[in-house]
């Protein structure tokens, strides 16, 4: 709340400083269709070229303010001819305007590249544009999560961690995500700082001509986010948006946890085989689960004590005692307006989220944007964006509670029948910690329901983004621009593990010393352990740019050129305090240099020292130029060039510079006489070719060592080798050919674009296998690889009906494949290429996608033993060492397909009736595979990680007819488990269709605004993550999340927004 108060104070101070507008004339009226005489809603009404804009409400009414005593009105609407109207002011009566049905140009879309804004007609590159209306159909705290379900060519992969990609992959080992630009400059801070309510529109730069202006960072595409600004000659306006959302609890039962009874039976089996004997005798007192502890204490496996445990599933404990429904609130308020000389935009946003584990996040955004026309040809603009986020940790969820062997045993009990927190086994045997310490040690038990009360993890982020720009137009043709952006983000983290937290009690106990005289000493003083971290990012960007624009005869030329420098540095510190007294906030010193015998075994350990410092600097210098020449408004030739240099380590200055360029052509077919038709409003053919790059600042050309703090043995800094010499280090390069067609047909009832592209990546970082006798491990990363990718993007927007019910559709369909053309792999051993379900690794196989699913051929279960079988040299085999050995080559593997979808996209449909709009957005992915994960008996024994498939395992002869799950055996055979989990039997198709969100909004402007066209109010309801409509796999797995992640629960939001 404190930050809210603080924010409002600042906000009020700003409000007081607002400039007020000049004399104004009101223009009002209504718009009807000429033929049917029906009121037209959503008609764009504009005064002169750069003047104020509004849209008619559902009663066809509009309302505008003009700054002078005459105005030229332009009225445009999809499906109608644009009309121009000149009016003398002041008006005495309402205007009535009739619009003619018929063809029209595409609605004008402006594209922002971060260096310039240009109209779609002039562009040769491939852009995809998301407007504010589409963007705001979803409710979220962040910006990026809204993009994948609506934008063209964009795909988000949560399961593999590859994340957001534009047109698939362009690199193998490099950074895979696109460059994110906010208001002209790459955004270095946490993108979650940006409030979605401040976003005006988003442009995605997809091909080389679009992106190459961003040079060495644009290899993966660019997402340009433009925030809202005020405009000159705009009426003062207040906009607000507020919503509340909640969600279902995470579906813990989605996870394929082993059934408690199965788990216990398996433990009984292991115990009978003597598996736990070594642990029982171990002086380290490793933790044993309750069942093993009972068995070790002589309890019979059939005893009721053990039987009773079999009926308890810990997930029910979590759902009832830990998880609750989240509740999120979002408030946003903005003021904007402008006079002839100045414009302003002022906004405040506040988000308050409480998640299902009671973790709280608050965010405050304050934004101020002011432009002032100092002279007729000189504009000064400045903006300040301030974000403050405070996040606090919540309870310990299902995945964060660990226990004996690592994973939580499924029959754990978190609370007794009265709901009192119970302890569970954590690091040591219960029997041991119950008795040890003669009362001198702290309680050594772990209470999962209670522990969070003693742990406070807070992270507070503040971010200031300061933009200053001067635009000077010395002549009609020339614009000079200097832009500066400064960003400072500080993140302060505190992890307060109180005296009663398990971590603290455990560490204090471990370092408790008993002298020969029987005296007890605490090497770590009794008290809380607090970790502090502090990181400060500061970024300076300076850009000087010259724009040239000239039109003569049938020619026009737009050109720009400039230079920029950029410096981003991060300074971080971490430190820890021991023995914190929470009441008076005092702390105590500890001895980091003594090798203390630890309590349980006496083996020596140093007290953990968490202090550290770091400083990172990334610097870039770039030169860029871009030009477009158009002849007769139809034929455009464009080109761009850029050189980048960075402080990438150890590269000679000459090699730091990378030149990148692109060229493009476009042809406006619809302006050619031979294609003049009523049905074709707009038709443009585009073709481009060019290069962009991919830079990874963490690479180095020289053998690089990295210093650690002082060695406890020598008292001097010690260092390890961080990077091995790589004299051939270069930046990755991606070339793209793109051919596209933009169209608007049937009176703009159907418009969209289709693009075909081919990408080639060269000098890509790739793994080179090494003879590890060299001493640097078995592989090294060098610029040795190449790949290609190709695909198409189709975007279709249609107005299906325009009558009382207006039905519009929006389709995005993308096809993308990638293929590695060069990647050195001297070892063709199959094992290197078979992935696991838990991690998605680059397979890197030539001729196949970067990420491929490859499996050991599967010969079914042995009908006599239930053992998994594969093929070794063409013969059915159960020799797992041989099956995983170097004689089985990658050619012997079965190739399923890519890990990333080949076809993906979305389909949205909106129906509007009397101000009520219903939108449903589908997303789909098709043509890919994933490994689902199954029972791994060795992992189960060693780490406690089970899988529900255990219940489906082969037990008796004949079971092989309906199951592929191998029998449980002892002794454990990790190779057998690895083979099975890497075999064809555990691969699933990822194809699915999902109903991503449903949005219902009701435009109440009519009765709330009483006909004032400038006032709008609407109420909306949104359901997100509605569910999967169809999936190819029969296991009930959500392919976007896999087996080990819980799918995002369905969320429900209600809200209202308006303008007055």
């Amino acid at each position, binding site marked *: 709340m404190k930050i809210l108060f603080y924010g409002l104070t600042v906000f009020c101070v700003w409000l007081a400083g607002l400039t007020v507008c000049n004399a104004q004339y009101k223009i009002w009226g209504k718009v009807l269709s000429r033929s049917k005489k029906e009121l037209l809603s959503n008609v764009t009404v504009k005064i002169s070229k750069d003047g104020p804009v509004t849209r008619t409400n559902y009663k066809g009414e509009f309302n505008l303010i003009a700054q002078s005593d005459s105005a030229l009105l332009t009225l445009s609407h999809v499906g109608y001819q644009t009309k121009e109207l000149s009016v003398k002011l002041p008006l005495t009566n309402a205007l009535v305007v009739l619009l003619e049905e018929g063809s029209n140009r595409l609605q004008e879309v402006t594209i922002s590249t971060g260096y310039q804004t240009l109209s779609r007609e002039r562009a040769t590159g491939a852009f995809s544009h998301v407007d504010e209306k589409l963007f705001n159909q979803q409710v979220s705290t962040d910006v990026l999560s809204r993009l994948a379900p609506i934008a063209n060519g964009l795909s988000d992969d949560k399961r593999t961690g590859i994340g957001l990609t534009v047109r698939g992959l362009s690199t193998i080992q490099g950074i895979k995500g696109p460059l994110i630009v906010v208001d002209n400059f790459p955004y270095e801070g946490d993108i979650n700082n940006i409030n979605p309510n401040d976003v005006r529109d988003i442009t995605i730069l997809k091909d080389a001509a679009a992106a190459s202006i961003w040079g060495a960072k644009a290899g993966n595409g660019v997402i340009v986010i433009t925030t809202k600004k005020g405009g000159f000659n705009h009426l003062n306006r207040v906009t607000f948006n507020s919503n509340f959302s909640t969600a279902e609890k995470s579906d813990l039962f989605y996870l394929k946890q082993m059934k408690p009874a199965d788990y216990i039976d398996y433990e009984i089996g292991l115990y009978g085989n003597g*598996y736990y004997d070594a642990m029982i005798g171990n*002086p380290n007192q490793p933790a044993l689960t309750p069942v093993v502890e009972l068995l070790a204490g002589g309890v019979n496996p059939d005893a009721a004590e053990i039987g009773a445990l079999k009926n308890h599933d810990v997930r029910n404990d979590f759902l009832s005692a830990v998880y609750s429904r989240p509740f999120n609130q979002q408030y946003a308020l903005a003021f904007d307006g402008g006079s002839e000389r100045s414009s302003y935009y002022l906004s405040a946003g506040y988000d308050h989220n409480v998640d299902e584990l009671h973790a709280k996040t608050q965010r405050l955004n304050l934004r101020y944007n002011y432009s002032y026309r100092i002279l007729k040809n000189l504009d000064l603009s400045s903006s300040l964006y301030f974000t403050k986020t405070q996040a606090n940790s919540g309870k310990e969820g299902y995945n964060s509670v660990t226990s004996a062997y690592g994973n939580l045993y499924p029959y754990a009990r978190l609370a007794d029948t009265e709901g009192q927190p119970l302890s569970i086994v954590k690091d040591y045997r219960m029997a041991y910690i119950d008795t040890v310490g003669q009362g001198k040690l702290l309680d050594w038990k772990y209470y999962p329901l209670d522990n969070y009360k003693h742990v406070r993890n807070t992270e507070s982020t503040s971010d200031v983004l300061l933009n200053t720009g001067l635009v000077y137009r010395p002549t009609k043709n020339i614009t000079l621009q200097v832009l500066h952006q400064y960003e400072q983000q500080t993140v302060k983290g505190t992890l307060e593990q109180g005296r009663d937290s398990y971590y603290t009690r455990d560490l204090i106990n471990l370092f408790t010393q008993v002298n020969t005289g029987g005296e007890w000493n605490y090497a770590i003083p009794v008290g809380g352990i607090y970790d502090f971290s502090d990181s400060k990012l500061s970024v300076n960007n300076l850009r000087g740019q010259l724009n040239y624009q000239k039109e003569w005869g049938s020619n026009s030329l737009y050109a720009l050129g400039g230079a920029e420098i950029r410096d981003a540095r991060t300074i971080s510190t971490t430190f820890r305090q021991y023995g914190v007294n929470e009441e008076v906030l005092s702390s105590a010193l500890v001895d980091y240099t003594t090798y203390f015998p630890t309590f349980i075994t006496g083996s020596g350990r140093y007290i953990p020292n968490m202090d550290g410092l770091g400083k990172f600097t990334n610097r870039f210098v770039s030169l860029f130029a871009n030009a477009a020449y158009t002849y007769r408004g139809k034929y455009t030739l464009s080109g761009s060039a850029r050189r980048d240099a960075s402080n990438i380590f150890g590269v000679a200055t000459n090699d730091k510079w990378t030149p990148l360029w692109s060229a493009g052509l476009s042809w406006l077919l619809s302006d050619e006489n031979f294609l003049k038709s009523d049905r074709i409003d707009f038709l443009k053919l585009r073709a481009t070719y060019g290069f962009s790059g991919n830079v990874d600042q*963490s690479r180095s050309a020289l053998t690089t060592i990295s210093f650690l703090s002082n060695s406890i043995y020598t008292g001097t800094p010690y260092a390890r080798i961080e990077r091995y010499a790589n004299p051939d280090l270069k930046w990755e390069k991606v070339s793209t050919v793109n051919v596209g067609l933009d169209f608007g047909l049937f009176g703009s009832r159907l418009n969209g674009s289709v693009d075909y592209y081919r990408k080639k990546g060269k000098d890509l970082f790739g793994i080179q296998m090494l003879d590890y006798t060299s*001493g640097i491990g078995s592989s090294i990363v060098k610029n040795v690889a190449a790949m290609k990718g190709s695909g198409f993007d189709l975007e279709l927007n249609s107005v299906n009906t325009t009558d009382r019910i207006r039905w519009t559709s929006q389709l995005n369909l993308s096809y993308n494949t990638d293929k590695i053309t060069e990647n050195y792999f001297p070892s063709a051993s199959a094992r290197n290429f078979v992935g696991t379900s838990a991690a998605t690794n680059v397979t890197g196989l030539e001729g196949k996608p970067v990420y491929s699913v490859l499996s050991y051929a599967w010969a079914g279960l042995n009908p006599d033993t239930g053992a998994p079988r594969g093929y070794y040299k063409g013969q059915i085999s159960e020799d797992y060492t041989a099956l995983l050995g170097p004689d089985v080559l990658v050619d012997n593997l079965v190739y399923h397909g890519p890990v990333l979808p080949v076809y993906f996209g979305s389909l949205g449909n909106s129906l509007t009736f009397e101000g009520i709009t219903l939108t449903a957005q589908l997303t789909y992915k098709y043509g890919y595979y994933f490994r689902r994960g199954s029972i791994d008996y060795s992992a189960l024994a060693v780490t406690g990680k089970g899988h529900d498939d255990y219940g489906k395992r082969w037990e008796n002869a004949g079971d092989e007819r309906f199951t592929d799950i191998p029998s449980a055996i002892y002794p454990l055979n990790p190779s057998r488990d690895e083979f099975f989990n890497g075999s064809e039997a555990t691969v699933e198709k990822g194809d699915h269709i999902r109903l991503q969100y449903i949005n219902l909004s009701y435009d109440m402007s009519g009765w709330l605004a009483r006909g004032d066209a400038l006032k709008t109010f609407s109420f909306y309801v949104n359901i997100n993550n509605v569910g999967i409509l169809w999936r190819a796999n029969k296991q009930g797995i959500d392919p976007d999340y896999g087996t080990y992640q819980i799918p995002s629960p369905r969320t429900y939001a209600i809200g209202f927004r308006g303008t007055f």
Partner: protein
Amino acid sequence: MKKLTIPIFKCCFFGVLLTLSSCEKFLDEKPNVKYAVPSQVSDLQALLDYYPTMNNRDAGSGEISADDYFLTDGDWEGLANTFFQDMYTWQPDNLFLPSSNEWSKLYEVVFVANTVLDGLEKISAQGNNADNVRGQALVFRAESFLRLAEIWTLAYDENATSNLGIPLRLTANFNELSKRSTLEQTYKQIIQDLQMAVALLPNISLTPLRPSKAAAYGYLSRTYFFMRDYSHALSYADSCMQLKADLMDYNSLDPSATYPFSKLNEEVIMECYIPAPGPLGPSRARISPDLLALYDEHDLRKRLFFKASPDGEAQLFKGSYEGGATLFSGLATDELMLIHAEGCVRLGRMEDGLHDLNELLKNRYDDTFKPLELTDKDALLRRIWQERRKELVFRGLRWPDIKRLNKEGNNIMLSRTVKGEVYRLEPNDLRYALPLPEDIIALSGMEQNPR
């Protein structure tokens, strides 16, 4: 106003241009301050001080193959790794995980040492500090080569010029392909490195984690000892003991402690350890009854080194000079004392040898100890071998000792029983040289050890 703005713009552009022209300097800033290109002696010293690689990752495959312990069938089955099961039963091949194994870890030490040696050359460093760092790197390299030879080659004997040695990587150039040397070349390189180091190192180093002159002498002595060149072994043991010969009196230790010894104690000349691999886990490896029978009731080591297993049926190793359950594998004065004793006896200096032995045992037995009076050379040698096995238990020395003694005709026959099946390893069997990891053979085309 207009007059004023033009100069402003000129200034701005001039500023940008100026910055661009000085951008070389601008771009020389390090991306991470903690990164450095090793360019000073102190940088190279810092690399050698990186103990997680240099000191804490010695190889235990020899100890796993040796005969001081056995596993119950249950524990053998419980090994999470079939490679260990096969190593335990002396299988002829496929004993190592691909990519990351003890071979790669030992050669990582060699690589760091070579990086330091190349680095010193490149910056042409001179002076005491540079000498010291060069000497340390040579000892680390030699020590790793010696360990590699103990595990992956046959014992040194008269066939050393034709038997396979290890690949001798002497530069940090990782693009060079590996080639196996002869056993003769391997030992020659180890000795040459250590002899060079002797001339460069200070007598005693700041910490036993850094090699010293005493350590170089000690490793020379150990190397010659395994080459069965006892006169050189004796004279280097002598040189080492001139610099450091402290012995602990085990009577002052508490046998009831979980770990009675402390790390870096006064006997340690050079510190490194084997992180107890699976079969040698502190609750798995049961002490061989024949070894246990060698300790009598007055021998303090019996209770300091061992404790009863939870089922009471066997003894387990507590750990020694690491003060924990990992296996000390560095150099300590007790080993040098025993090399000295054996060297003396072999060269006919019976009394000196007996004196050495009594000096050690005085500190290992309780106060009932009476100095031994052995006059028969063979009897004395046998006692020294016994004490060697008892004293240096789980120090990574038993495996090369078996190989050495079998060359002396001791005819030590190893045998293990797993699930009723008996596995044997005859003296001087080819399997005494473990197979190179198969993936390395595939990658480098090197010759595999014969079977």
